[in-house]
């Protein structure tokens, strides 16, 4: 059998480079930057411990979350006001328990905002109650 004669023994690079560039463009375009997530810790009161726990702590902050906004220790306020109130209280003690009571139809975003404010001022004793 006659052997094929190669004039040019060099491999053809052009198609490979084309493919590789296509791949690169594909990956650059499809790459998606992920958001940076954070986690906000909270406690769920144990069903039987709830009653005893609330009597042990003398200082308690009550935050009610409704459908429209927040009520802090009985007064409705904006998240900005809540922020300054928590800041003031956290300055004296960060140990006090924060009771967060959520209405059934309150958006989860409000709860996250409240937890975020508490985390900002290092209040870590957070208990979430749900109301019907």
């Amino acid at each position: 059998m006659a052997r094929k004669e190669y004039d040019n023994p060099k491999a053809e690079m052009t198609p490979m480079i084309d493919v590789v560039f296509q791949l690169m463009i594909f990956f650059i375009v499809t790459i998606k930057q992920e958001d940076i997530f954070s986690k906000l810790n909270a406690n769920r009161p144990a069903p039987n411990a709830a009653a005893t726990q609330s009597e042990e702590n003398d200082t308690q902050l009550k935050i009610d979350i409704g459908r429209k906004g927040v009520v802090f220790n009985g007064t409705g306020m904006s998240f900005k006001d809540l922020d300054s109130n928590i800041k003031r209280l956290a300055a004296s003690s960060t140990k006090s328990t924060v009771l967060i009571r959520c209405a059934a139809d309150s958006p989860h975003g409000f709860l996250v905002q409240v937890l975020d404010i508490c985390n900002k001022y290092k209040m870590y004793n957070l208990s979430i109650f749900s109301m019907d």
Partner: protein
Amino acid sequence: MKKPKNEDVSLDMTPMIDVVFQLIIFFVVTLKMSDDKDTTIKLADGKNGIVLTQEELPPSQLTIDVARSGRVSLANVTMSKSMIVSAIKKRVAAYGTDFPCMIRADKATPHKYVAEVMGWCTEAGMWKLSFVAIQEHKSKN
């Protein structure tokens, strides 16, 4: 002025191909398939929370997704109450109650759905829960 003489006009491709291959390998490796969670969920902002890095999360962690509609899912698979409770119970049996149990709920999810999931966690013995929020926006939407 004397012009330098170009004896060989053909370009040397080898270094360029090397670089391009390196880039491709980089992108292939860093590409993360994110279909293991409910992508419809729009999280609320939580700038002051503890930063979550996917790499640092122990394999014992459990993330429960709660969509705006109240759909509860694990790894983008819709789950019933009994399935979630048994999943948590299994983890409590294996790791105790210290594993991270996280709830990823949409910011518009009514609290009753989240409360329901929190109730299931309590039922399975988990009191310590965390909520996932966004510390810093990076993606376009």
